[in-house]
């Protein structure tokens, strides 16, 4: 597997099209500098609220698609959650949008052809199609497992059916595909496809479950995590989670620059939202024994 670091750029893009896709909104934005540097798994960070915004932090979204039109466009697919995404949902064609990207560590791609299972939860599927494209160009077999709470929240089922060797859909309410979660369906898909690697993007609980399944099968798994972010390019230090390094040491690493894609078994899912006692620099931990900080309050 290989990966390349790219330099992000800031682009004031123009919204080309907007559309609704079931429960989601999709925005296509002209942003050549970002499109040309894009690799599957990259994200962009968007300023919201316009001039004199009351929202000083940025919002981060996976890039769903890039197209060569107008020098290069990127498409975002998003759910309305809070103030920033409601503002985004009101954007119209010709509005301008401040994007920074591409950001983060993209999905590493295998050097040689192999069988890949791509697992998406909710809008997490959005980042998988560009990946599938790349994998297929390299001769890989691609199988999809897409899930969500309900049918209207499963993103990209049609495209998955077109692209994938097989496509398995799951919904928690049973309104589409199998009733249940992606992790219920995953073992069979891995077995049937004789999968060599799993890629997953979706809610943290799903990534944890997918990682457990892959570990069970003893195959590598790459997960794209979602942590709350304020900048997306590494300066705010708010998007950290505990990840075990090559040296076996757990560090609080930024998911925007060191991630969002990590090897699943390296992410300490059960410890997210804490500072594990054995993490580098944890309060009371070894590294701090010599220091004066004995409480976790400063």
């Amino acid at each position: 597997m290989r990966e390349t670091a790219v330099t992000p750029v800031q682009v004031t893009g123009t919204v080309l099209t907007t559309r609704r896709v079931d429960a989601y909104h999709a925005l296509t934005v002209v942003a050549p500098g970002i499109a040309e540097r894009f690799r599957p798994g990259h994200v962009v960070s968007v300023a919201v609220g316009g001039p004199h915004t009351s929202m000083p932090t940025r919002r981060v979204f996976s890039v769903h698609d890039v197209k060569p039109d107008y020098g290069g466009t990127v498409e975002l697919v998003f759910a309305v959650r809070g103030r920033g995404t409601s503002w985004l949902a009101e954007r119209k064609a010709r509005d301008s949008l401040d994007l920074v990207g591409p950001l983060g560590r993209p999905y590493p791609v295998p050097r040689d052809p192999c069988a890949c299972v791509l697992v998406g939860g909710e809008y997490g599927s959005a980042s998988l199609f560009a990946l599938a494209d790349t994998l297929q160009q390299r001769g890989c077999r691609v199988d999809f497992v897409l899930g969500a709470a309900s049918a209207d929240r499963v993103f990209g089922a049609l495209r998955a059916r077109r692209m994938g060797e097989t496509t398995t859909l799951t919904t928690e309410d049973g309104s589409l595909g199998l009733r249940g979660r992606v992790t219920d369906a995953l073992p069979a898909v891995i077995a049937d496809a004789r999968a060599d690697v799993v890629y997953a993007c979706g809610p943290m609980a799903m990534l944890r479950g997918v990682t457990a399944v892959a570990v069970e099968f003893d195959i590598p798994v790459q997960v794209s995590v979602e942590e709350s972010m304020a900048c997306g390019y590494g300066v705010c230090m708010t998007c950290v989670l505990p990840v075990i390094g090559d040296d076996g040491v757990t560090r609080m690493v930024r998911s925007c620059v060191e991630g969002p894609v990590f090897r699943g078994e390296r992410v300490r899912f059960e410890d997210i939202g804490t500072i594990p006692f054995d993490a580098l620099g944890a309060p009371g931990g070894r590294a701090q024994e010599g220091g004066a900080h004995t409480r976790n309050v400063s």
Partner: protein
Amino acid sequence: MLTPEMSVDMRTYLAHVELANPITTAAGCAASGDELSQFIDLARLGAVVTRSITMAPRAGRPTPRMAETPSGMLNAVGLQGPGVDVFLESELPRLVERGARAVVSIAGGSVAEYTALARRLADAPGVAAIEVNLSCPNVEDLGRVFARDPAASAEVVASVRATMRYDVPVVAKLAPDVADIVAVARACVDGGADALAMINTPLGMSIDVDTMRPSLAAGTGGLSGPAIRPLAVRCLWQVHAALPGVPIVGMGGVLTGRDALELILAGACVVSVGTALFHDPYACLRILRELEELLKERGFERLADAVGLAHRPPGAGPRQRIDLEESSL
């Protein structure tokens, strides 16, 4: 007066240290410097103020560490950082290599720890100044924050001043959530501070009405961004009026050149940019450009002439005397 082609002399002094211009990053808002240098040339800034360096590496606070608030944000990053050893081995040399002037922020839990940091930094090449982050809990005083206690602040500053090389200015960084910012400022200057920096983030909180729990894992966090600019301007104004000879690094909600000019007119000779860097990676250089333009429009030949200018006695006109200690009413 300036002709349109002339440029404004943007040089400024942090105590006796000359900076090419007044715009710096704010402590803790530019990670190691590497991240921003993907976007801008750090050498073009007045200085880079580092994150607050601690003796040991620190993992910081648990997540969620951030919550957006109206025109602001709360953070409880908790001084995550590599510790002074790694800082001296790799972060500082990289800043120097990039041609950046480095103002090193330090944080400790006791006077001894601040002093130990100063000792480690005393001989490090490339330290343009030391900024003492006083918004840390004093483990020897039940975790009471240094910056809320004039005497404790002064003690830290005096010890750092005594330890650092004489030619490296020591800047005391103050927090606004005190009853009397001038008292803290005065204590720090009496303790030997060569300059003051303000404001650090006042303590705030937000509660998620869906989970019905505090939004931050740490409960409270520091409030930053445009929301706090009026508090920053007021602190700068009060301190500059009381201690007009002391150079001040102003910060708090600066997003544009106009905001920077507001702080300068209140008394800042250096302006740090924090939260704006999360909104715009080019913020520092954009603000610098906008500031220079505004100064030019107003006929300034030198930035220095604008520092504290809003304090000049009102000319003829119906303005009233401005009291310093006032109620908000």
